[in-house]
């Protein structure tokens, strides 16, 4: 029970204001800055709560006065609209990809929440994913150029190159994990793929790129077991690329949200994941916060009503608000 009390007790000032604002008791809008932020929400495993968190954080940020666009990039399993209580929209990313509309803004769907718009996903993208790289890059550029303060991109499960490239397009990638071995395992797999892809993008030598590709397989012939081994191997091939990889490691800071936590031990897993990532990848993962397990989450999903609107006083909603206030303050 303590965990719930802690969650409420530790709401920072901004979070408290946000709660007050959402409940309509008189806290004014707090506009942050005009700098655009893109957050991609991924994590490898389906069912970890990415869409729930994306939708509810988006609402919180919009309520704070940010102009927010939610992008449903769950290619093939798009249902972010359901979390917002919207019926399957008439327009989607598909209309943009198929050039039925000239600009991405024309498929933006308004929501019941002021300042919040939605770009729904497209089944078509699934097939186009890895083969049409040009199309993917154009889509990423178009998303990045949307006129908005904050763009939250909800990614699908899996480690396809499309998902990885969407994850890496952001200012901050957010991993949503539940405290279960399967979820953590998938998240590590996803993180490793994203990390190696980012390293690959930072180097110029084709032999180094090949080396990185081989290192993805732990049974590789070079005996490369971890990123440290990889950098040692790259140093022997190209010192410059090795240095670029080290520099890239230093600026790669994904974020972590632990969802459906039930105990203090669960919360501490977030800190342990952070430590494990530091030892294994040499990266500083930021533990952004946690969302407690709460039956109200399921209730809100069944009612197709966002939790932070339906039941802002619920424990899970308060945790989401707290994380949202942190994101708002990062502008």
């Amino acid at each position, binding site marked *: 029970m*303590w965990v719930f*009390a*802690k*969650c409420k007790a*530790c*709401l*920072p000032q901004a*979070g408290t204001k946000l709660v007050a604002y959402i409940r309509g008791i008189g806290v004014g809008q707090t506009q942050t800055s005009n700098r655009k*932020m893109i957050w991609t929400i991924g994590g490898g495993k389906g069912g970890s709560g990415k869409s729930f968190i994306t939708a509810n954080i988006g609402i919180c940020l919009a309520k704070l006065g940010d102009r927010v666009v939610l992008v449903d990039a769950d290619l093939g399993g798009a249902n972010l609209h359901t979390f917002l209580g919207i019926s399957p929209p008439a327009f989607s990313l598909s209309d943009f990809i198929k050039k039925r509309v000239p600009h991405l803004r024309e498929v933006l769907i308004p929501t019941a929440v002021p300042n919040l718009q939605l770009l729904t996903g497209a089944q078509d993208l699934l097939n186009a994913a890895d083969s049409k790289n040009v199309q993917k890059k154009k889509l990423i550029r178009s998303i990045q150029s949307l006129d908005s303060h904050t763009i939250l991109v909800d990614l699908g499960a899996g480690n396809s190159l499309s998902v990885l490239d969407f994850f890496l397009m952001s*200012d*901050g990638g957010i991993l949503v994990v539940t*405290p*279960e*071995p399967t979820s*953590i*395992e998938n998240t*590590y*797999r996803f993180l490793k793929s994203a990390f190696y892809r980012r390293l690959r993008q930072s180097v110029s030598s084709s032999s180094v790129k090949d080396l990185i590709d081989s290192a993805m397989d732990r049974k590789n012939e070079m005996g490369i*077991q*971890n*990123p*440290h081994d990889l*950098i040692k191997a790259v140093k022997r091939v190209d010192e410059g690329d090795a240095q670029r990889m*080290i*520099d890239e*490691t*230093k*600026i790669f*800071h*994904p*974020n972590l949200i632990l969802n459906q936590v039930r105990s*203090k031990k669960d*919360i*501490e*897993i*977030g*800190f*342990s*994941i952070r*430590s*494990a990532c*530091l*030892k*294994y*990848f*040499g990266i500083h993962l*930021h*533990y*952004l*916060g*946690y969302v407690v397990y709460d039956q109200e989450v399921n209730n809100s999903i069944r009612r197709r009503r966002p939790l932070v609107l339906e039941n802002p006083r619920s424990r899970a909603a308060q*945790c989401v608000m*707290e*994380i949202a*206030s*942190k*994101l708002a303050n*990062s502008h």
Partner: protein
Amino acid sequence: MKSIKDQTYYEILEVSPTATAKEILRAYEHAKETFHADSMAVYSLFSEEEVEEIQKAIEEAFRVLMDEALRRSYDQSHFQTVGGPPTEKSSEPPGGSKEKKTSLSFTGLSFNIEDGPYSGKTLRRVRERMGIELQTISKETKINIKILESIEEEVFEKLPTLVYLKGFLKSYARSLGLDPQKVIEEYIHSMEESKKE
């Protein structure tokens, strides 16, 4: 990026070179919890051999850093070689602008071993988990050990008047790195509830 063999004892335990014994104890507890064989956090990321290697490094780092003489000698020999102790700043990446955008520290929770509500039993559990003797607390806070025992065992009739008790709880909480205000409020609340019963 350094392999575990190349990391300093401070890096292994993720503490600053100026860390106090209490901070080292906490970091050690956390490291042990993270890198034990059944830990979910290492599952699928590290091989069994890698986990064993890290565990050994953690034990060795803890052994040396908790011994004043060994630590002094380690600092002298190590930092003479590498040109000064590592600092928080030196481990940060260059070119802070990108870092600023994505550096989001954890909100809403400091890594306390125990979060309360604080009663005598909770305080004792926190202290024991940190491996600190009551005698040490007594020495540090200058509070008579009998009073500390009464606080932990919740022998309320042996406790001093409220104004003194608050002062003792404040010092005790500080010595464990806990929030003094929270400890005072919750301990006194629990004491009052007990008296009512």
